[in-house]
């Protein structure tokens, strides 16, 4: 059956209405001014953590960096038991963010928070 899957990929993409419905990175900008925190969070002015959303395709393309388990789970969903969900679209790589803020005692703090901005997505 996997052979047939490979053959119907073009149809599958067309049927899904193009790229945007695929698992991909989406923006989610938050402005500290909106939160009323810009008088003590000095920089950055904006924080865009981004997020991943979309359907994981039947055939997980190589650039998704999906683990083998995700490939197996996709087949199980497609060929064995649809109750087993398809792999989920989640962040794959992150980058840190640096924040400059004023502390309660009047000091000024520069801090890097790890894994704060999603840089890419995977299916797993």
């Amino acid at each position: 059956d996997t052979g047939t899957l490979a053959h119907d990929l073009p149809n599958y993409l067309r049927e899904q209405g193009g790229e945007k419905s695929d698992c991909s990175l989406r923006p989610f900008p938050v402005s500290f001014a909106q939160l009323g925190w810009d008088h003590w969070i000095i920089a950055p002015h904006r924080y865009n953590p981004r997020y991943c959303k979309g359907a994981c395709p039947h055939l997980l393309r190589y650039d998704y960096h999906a683990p083998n388990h995700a490939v197996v789970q996709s087949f199980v969903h497609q060929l064995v038991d649809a109750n087993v969900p398809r792999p989920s679209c989640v962040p794959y790589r992150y980058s840190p963010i640096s924040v400059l803020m004023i502390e309660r005692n009047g000091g000024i703090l520069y801090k890097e928070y790890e894994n704060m901005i999603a840089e890419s997505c995977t299916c797993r």
Partner: protein
Amino acid sequence: SPLHPGSLPAVPTLPLLQALQTRAPGSPGWRVGPSSGQPLRYMLNLYRRAADREGRPRRGRSLGTNTIRLVQASSHGGQPWAGRWYMQPLTYLLEGQPEAEHLLRATVVYLPSLPLARGRLLCALELVAAGKTPGLLLSPTARPRRGWAEVDVTPYLALGNSSVRSLALQHVCVRAGRAGGGHDAPVLPSRPFLLLYLNDTQAGLAPPAAEPHRHRR
């Protein structure tokens, strides 16, 4: 814009907002009067060298640490001016540093020379004698022709395992140059500030696990 202050949930869901909310104004212990002036400009320049507009640390421009804390001095004592001399005792309070932040380096940043209407004001820093540590004049690690100078005070803060609660310095300046006929307006040299270069071993956001570690039965 997805969020409006008016529609903020009681507990923000974004991890960064949760962590930052614990530091927000109005939370207990917040003292009015955020920093301004030269310390703020210094840290803003430092930030712009290290991170882009989106807040992402610049590649290859790392500061070598993930946390830098600027501590302002509290001054005490009477009139700092005596003739041509300016002597200001300064104390930097170090209590309340989070345990996860480990000190890598500490420097005090000050202006060694300030232009006056007539002549210059030359400044230096002295370590105030405390306990077994004798007082001494601190020499800057680099001698810039203009602008800020840094003196390394790491040895006086990282005393073995005991945590030092405060650092006491003396900011000493002298008016150099031709003595003018008239009376120079009193100058207040900008106050030196302490920079703590720290390694935060919990640079994440989630507070330490509140539950004790449970062993598998």
